[in-house]
């Protein structure tokens, strides 16, 4: 039972990197970016391919993040320069990436079971067991990334990106190239998502071309759960809420699976969860109206 709890939290921490990326695009930039479902498997594909070519698994993670940067930049350019609606721009990149990911891997699936990954390296480095490594690595990674994100969005540049998400017109009046801010924001978001894909692939022991399906909803579910629990407040607290939301989401999933829900229904369950959370304000309003009558 204890092992299950630890590994659930570890999963939550690992996937919170993706949630941070989704938080940056959907919440900070206010751009509904669907690139996620392509940049996540892109990160996994790049990492797995490099590892089978005997590149260091650590380098493979950075390469996965770099893949995300390119994907995010493409979506950003489609959206800001070519004026394609954000949702469509993201979907176009995502669909294009499906083919690109197949090209990178050369097949639909690459196994990493017989090779070293960042997890086995962590085990060897600190002399810890599999479970401990699966917890330690994501925990350290998340702490480092959250600190880096907090610092960046407190700099002059980062603050302009956040403000652009709230008010494009105001930021132009302040002399800021808002197109550039959105592109930079999207590439940071997708860098995190690609990095998460690279870590998850190594954790799963394989990269699969279909591993991105549903990731956007997982990310959103985590972001929304965090907001509901902690409320929307300062940027610092929002970051913590995203991590907490991601862990809570994994706990909810673990509980419903434990209670006997078939794993095939996971995505349906997640979608309904997000739907309810998004509809909450509407439902509350209707309930209040009903009471008033």
């Amino acid at each position, binding site marked *: 039972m204890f092992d299950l709890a630890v590994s659930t939290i570890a999963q939550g921490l690992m996937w919170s990197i993706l949630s941070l990326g989704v938080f940056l695009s959907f919440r900070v930039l206010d751009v509904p970016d669907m690139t996620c479902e392509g940049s996540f498997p892109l990160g996994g594909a790049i990492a797995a391919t490099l590892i089978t070519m005997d590149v260091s698994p650590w380098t493979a993670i950075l390469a996965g993040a770099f893949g995300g940067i390119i994907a995010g930049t493409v979506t950003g350019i489609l959206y800001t320069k070519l004026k394609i609606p954000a949702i469509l721009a993201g979907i176009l990149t995502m669909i294009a990436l499906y083919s690109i990911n197949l090209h990178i891997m050369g097949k639909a699936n690459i196994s990493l079971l017989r090779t070293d990954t960042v997890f086995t390296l962590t085990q060897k480095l600190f002399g810890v067991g599999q479970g401990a490594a699966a917890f330690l690595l994501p925990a350290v990674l998340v702490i480092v990334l959250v600190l880096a994100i907090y*610092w*960046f969005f*407190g*700099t*002059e*540049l*980062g*603050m*302009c990106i*956040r*403000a652009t*998400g*709230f*008010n494009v*017109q*105001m*930021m*132009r*009046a*302040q*002399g*800021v*190239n*808002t197109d550039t801010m959105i592109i930079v924001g999207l590439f940071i978001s997708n860098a995190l998502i690609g990095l998460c894909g690279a870590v998850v692939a190594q954790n799963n022991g394989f990269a699969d071309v279909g591993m991105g399906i549903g990731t956007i909803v997982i990310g959103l579910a985590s972001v929304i759960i965090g907001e509901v629990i902690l409320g929307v407040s*300062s940027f610092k607290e929002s970051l913590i809420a995203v991590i907490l939301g991601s862990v809570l989401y994994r706990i909810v999933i673990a509980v419903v699976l434990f209670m006997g829900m078939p794993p095939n229904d996971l995505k349906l369950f997640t979608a309904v969860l997000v739907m309810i959370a998004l509809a909450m304000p509407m439902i509350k309003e209707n309930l209040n109206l009903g009471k008033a009558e």
Partner: protein
Amino acid sequence: MLQISHISKTFFKGTQNEKKALIDLSLTLNDGDFCTVIGGNGAGKSTLLNSISGAYIPDSGKILIDGKDVTHMREYKRAKYIGRVFQDPMKGTASGMQLEENLILAARRGESRRLRWAFGKGDHEKFRDMLARLDLGLENRLETRIGLLSGGQRQAVTLLMATLKKPEILLLDEPTAALDPKTAEKVLKLTDEIVHEQHLTTLMITHNMRDALRFGNRLIMMNSGRIIADYTPEEKKELTIDMLLKKFEETSDAISDRLMLGN
């Protein structure tokens, strides 16, 4: 100094909805001129301001700020010369960010934004002093999200932001239209104070003729994309609401129902 010479702007050119918003319009503001702009709906007042700020690029003509040709300069690039306050209090600030974060964004208007921590030593104290001057009780709310402030407070903050770094031109597009009379008066008084103190060249649109007469040293009246009257500082001193109304009747088709007499 602002020099506008012969600018024209037509929207939806070549369609049935073609709208000539500005027609061969020229205007020169000297340093320190505070010019109020009145005119009915669709007179071209906002189009004029938006052409100066770069939100629209005129079809022809030239716009010079301090002798520099900005006619075709991108909006965000010419922002270093221009401070702006919008009609909608929501438009001038980032609602989800703290009061002091909004101020720091405005303090670097037109500068390149770098990878260094935005707040420097003494910034908090500087902002606190500035806000204390507004007398709106904002000096102890530096970390409050702007979205939690009232419309009047937000408009006062926007004004402070527009002038935090001295602009060559201050553009005010009906800054008090969305405010209650008491708050509107406070914001206008503050505007007048700051404009005089910093000797700012200012263009302010208003729908209130009384305000147009009370503030500034110059007044222009617009109708159908043209300036139909341009009063010099000497003329403006003698100007009355009746004279303005008469001028309107002479030239415009009808007085807009949004023109208010004030009281």
